[in-house]
């Protein structure tokens, strides 16, 4: 009983006292990118590194690749390595946080490289919260020394994930159409590269015209449109084996293919007698299903991330607009109602947004809207740009842009660009040749 009274009275008085706490709502802060220091990765035992590896300067390159990745995300500001006071070795073992706080770093990354007995490269990295003086992430990764770039991308993803709370997108690849030659005799080849532009490779020889390559979410397969014997058809290509095959046996042209998010189906347009409708095909059973049947042009289909809905564009209302329907083709609903024409809708991997190209008063815009058509936001405007594709975390869009040709007809070059959802962080992705129709892969290390 005594206890009861004691607790009763203590609660009574305790709560009274707690009213004295002053509560302040902090609803604003600065929107500067997070200042982060990336210390050089050091070689633990240089004698074990072969001369070739030493020549690669892995210690510098590692931190350089990570720095570039984080910088391009727009969420981090890399502090100039020249201002770092502490040596890489000490920074990795037990950093003196004051030294890093002095150069206004809030976060610090350190790492070391080891060649183990099996001649594998072992990369250790640590992420330090300089302000709260503690380690917040640590990881060791093994790989053959040649794949050091992928390790750097995976580490970048880990840092991004830890500092933003969402999945990264650095350990990914981009497939695109590499273009060369004059306008009337353009050679178009399929090309693939890392998301930062490194490791560029060509997948086709350029004998046939290729367009709209798309990744399977599992990232081993690509579907694209190619002209063979002057008939455009949808093909499947396995990146690992190089096997190429025709998709479906349609008596006409098929185009605008895309995988479903589970990778089991391909959805595309099939055109016959001037009318195009949307079809899906199960990859294993080869079962084809017609989803729309309307005397207008229905094209550019894209599955939602859960596979329950499909978005596409159609001119059934008289002008090209974006529609959403259930994955069986029922309940078609128009979602774009703004001025101008809307096309190439793509559902975000997060499921909340649909990216699109908008043509209005002779300008091309890349924008996003919610899947019910509300909240339309235009991110970027240019003379000619289209075909947005999402990064696997649904934060960044990649698209291509064509520069205005001079009166002589020369100078029309196309290039790849990326922009994030804020609309401020727009960057060009450098490619060896002109490039168009980019598509982003899923995370490779998932």
């Amino acid at each position: 009983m005594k206890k009861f009274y004691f607790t009763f009275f203590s609660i009574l008085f305790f709560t009274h006292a707690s009213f004295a706490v002053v509560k302040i709502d902090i609803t604003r802060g600065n929107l500067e990118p997070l200042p982060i220091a990336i210390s050089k990765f050091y070689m633990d035992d240089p004698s074990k590194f072969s001369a070739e590896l030493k020549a690669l300067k892995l210690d510098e390159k590692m931190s350089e690749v990570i720095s570039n990745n984080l910088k391009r995300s727009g969420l981090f500001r890399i502090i100039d390595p020249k201002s770092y006071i502490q040596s890489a070795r000490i920074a990795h073992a037990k950093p003196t946080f004051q030294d890093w706080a002095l150069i206004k770093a809030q976060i610090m990354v350190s790492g070391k490289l080891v060649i183990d007995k099996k001649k594998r490269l072992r990369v250790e990295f640590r992420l330090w919260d300089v302000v709260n003086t503690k380690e917040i992430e640590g990881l060791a990764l093994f790989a053959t020394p040649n794949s050091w770039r992928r390790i750097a991308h995976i580490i970048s993803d880990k840092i991004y994930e830890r500092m933003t709370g969402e999945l990264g997108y650095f350990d990914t690849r981009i497939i695109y159409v590499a273009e060369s030659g004059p306008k009337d005799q353009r050679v178009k080849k399929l090309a693939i590269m890392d998301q930062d532009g490194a490791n560029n490779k060509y997948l086709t020889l350029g004998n046939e015209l290729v367009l709209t390559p798309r990744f399977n979410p599992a990232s081993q397969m690509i579907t694209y449109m190619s002209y063979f014997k002057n008939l455009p058809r949808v093909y499947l290509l396995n990146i690992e084996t190089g096997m190429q095959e025709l998709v479906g046996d349609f008596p006409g042209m098929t185009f605008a293919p895309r995988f479903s998010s589970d990778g089991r189906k391909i959805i595309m347009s099939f055109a016959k007698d001037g009318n195009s409708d949307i079809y899906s095909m199960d990859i294993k059973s080869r079962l084809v299903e017609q989803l729309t049947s309307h005397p207008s042009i229905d094209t550019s289909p894209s599955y939602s991330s859960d596979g329950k809905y499909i978005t596409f564009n159609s001119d059934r209302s008289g002008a090209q607009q974006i529609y959403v329907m259930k994955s069986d083709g029922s309940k078609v609903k128009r979602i774009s109602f703004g001025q101008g024409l809307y096309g190439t809708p793509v559902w975000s991997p997060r499921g909340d947004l649909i990216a699109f190209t908008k043509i209005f008063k002779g300008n091309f815009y890349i924008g996003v809207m919610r899947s019910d058509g509300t909240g339309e936001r235009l991110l970027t405007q240019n003379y000619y740009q289209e075909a947005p594709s999402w990064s696997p975390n649904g934060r960044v869009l990649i698209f291509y842009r064509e520069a205005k040709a001079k009166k002589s007809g020369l100078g029309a070059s196309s290039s790849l660009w990326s922009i994030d959802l804020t609309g401020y962080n727009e960057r060009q992705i450098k490619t060896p040749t002109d490039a168009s129709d980019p598509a982003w892969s899923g995370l490779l290390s998932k």
Partner: protein
Amino acid sequence: MYRSVSLSVLFHLGFVLLTALTLPFVKKEPITAQQLIAIDIIQISEKTQIPFAPKAREIIEKIKKEKKKERVVTKQAPPKVTPKEKPKLVPLPDKLKLKKQEEKKKKQNPKEVKELSRQSSEFEKKELFDPNKIAALIDKSKEETADIQKKQSLEATQNQDQTVNLNKGITLSQEDAIKAQIYKCWNIPLGLPFDQNLLVRIRMKLRQDGSILSSEVLDHRRMNQPGQGYYKVLAESALRAVKLCDPLKMPSTGYEKWKDLQLNFDAKEMLRG
């Protein structure tokens, strides 16, 4: 027998009386009305010193202009305004008091009480008893005991907490000064989703010179739960902001009022743009 019964009655009566006198909530009628005088100091919050987000700035400047015009008029009127800091020290004629009392009684409803209590002094607030505070009490106990596994319940406590910011032991301009300091120190994690209800509450104890004695995240258990990645990111950024701002520049007086601070970090407004 007779004696023991009367004794018992006496003691019981005594106890009932004692409770009635000491425990404030036994009284049905709130004792708020008498002390609530300072009605004229309202709307300082609308003129807060820190510039709002760019879009809102224009609107605020408009309001400011209108207010300026009004001020010219009030200059000619007899000064009504009581000092901001210590309203309890200002003696008022009894008649006036009574008038105000009557007005209060007519007006009284929960919403009004919330507005008015903002202007009352620290001392008066302790006497106040209103339904909003029950919510505060419940919220407090929830914080201690409730199972915070479910996300929904988490958001519920957050929402309740947002409504309970009645007790301002410091003036609004002092509050603005603290806010301005924290705003500079806080790097909002730009990748956070704008459509999720994320609120991080940090409780701190301060020394007399404004340096931080201790700081902790309320709901810190939530930080390490799976699927709460965004919350963890926000909480860590808030902790960094507090550390970077240490020591805070605090008013030289009234240490008792601001020695315990709770900062509610909410980036939603900013991220929505």
